[in-house]
């Protein structure tokens, strides 16, 4: 089984995790047009390169981010959401 390294729990079997899809910007609902809001909801990064995406370690309900190559499935790194502010 594929192993994913959780920033909090360390290396775990991937079936302990749930994928929440690519990271998106958080648009302001009051300042966003309906068209852009629909795009925000229904569109996500579908590139073949490196994705930054949300994951959850289900038993501990811990949300974190991973950089993963969408073609090779290589996980480049996983990190706590607090690091996002530094990105």
């Amino acid at each position, binding site marked *: *089984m*594929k192993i994913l390294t959780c920033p909090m729990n360390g290396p775990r079997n*991937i*079936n302990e995790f*749930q*994928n929440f*899809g690519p990271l998106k910007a958080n648009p302001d609902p009051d300042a966003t047009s*309906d*068209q852009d809001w*629909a*795009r925000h*909801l*229904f*569109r*996500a990064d*579908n590139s*073949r390169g490196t*994705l930054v*995406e949300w994951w959850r370690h289900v038993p501990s309900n811990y949300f974190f981010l991973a950089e993963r190559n*969408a*073609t*090779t*499935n290589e996980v480049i790194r996983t990190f706590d959401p607090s690091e996002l502010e530094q990105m």
Partner: protein
Amino acid sequence: MIAVGGMNYDKAMKAGVELPIRCYPLQAMVTQPLKPWLHTLVSSVSLHTNLVQSSRGEIVIGGGSDPYQLYSTRSTLDMKEHLAEGAVHLIPFLHGVRLLRQWAGTTDMTADYSPIMGASPLSNLWLDCGWGTWGFKATPVADKYMAQTIANQKVAPILEPFTMERFATFDLLNEMGATAASH
């Protein structure tokens, strides 16, 4: 017309059309041939497993998509174990039957699990995309109407609900119960 399966997203991007599609692998496998005994399609939504016997006698076992988006078409041991477990739950006498082969393909998934058919934002560029996990049962008739659409330069009325615009107007289609893991 853009109708290139797992390549739809990339092809549309080349024309500057951004499809609301994400690509996931879907896997299936077949057993060694058996004498005919299964004359219907057996499907369990809770086990995420479906079975059908081909005319060559192989039991074709399929299920849900992989749990995250990916362009690789390698099949995984996890999914084989999962499908075998579901198959044996449904039909216990399959437990000693051998697997003959397995494979994976790229499925182009939309947010409502329904295809995108009809016009694109560009004139004379037509879309037949997003068939995802259930396209080969439905495409023959869909493409009859796509051919009509192109010949008449007007979207066939029966295809209108499948417009890409439905995402912008929140008119999503409720087809998921008819598809997803269930066949």
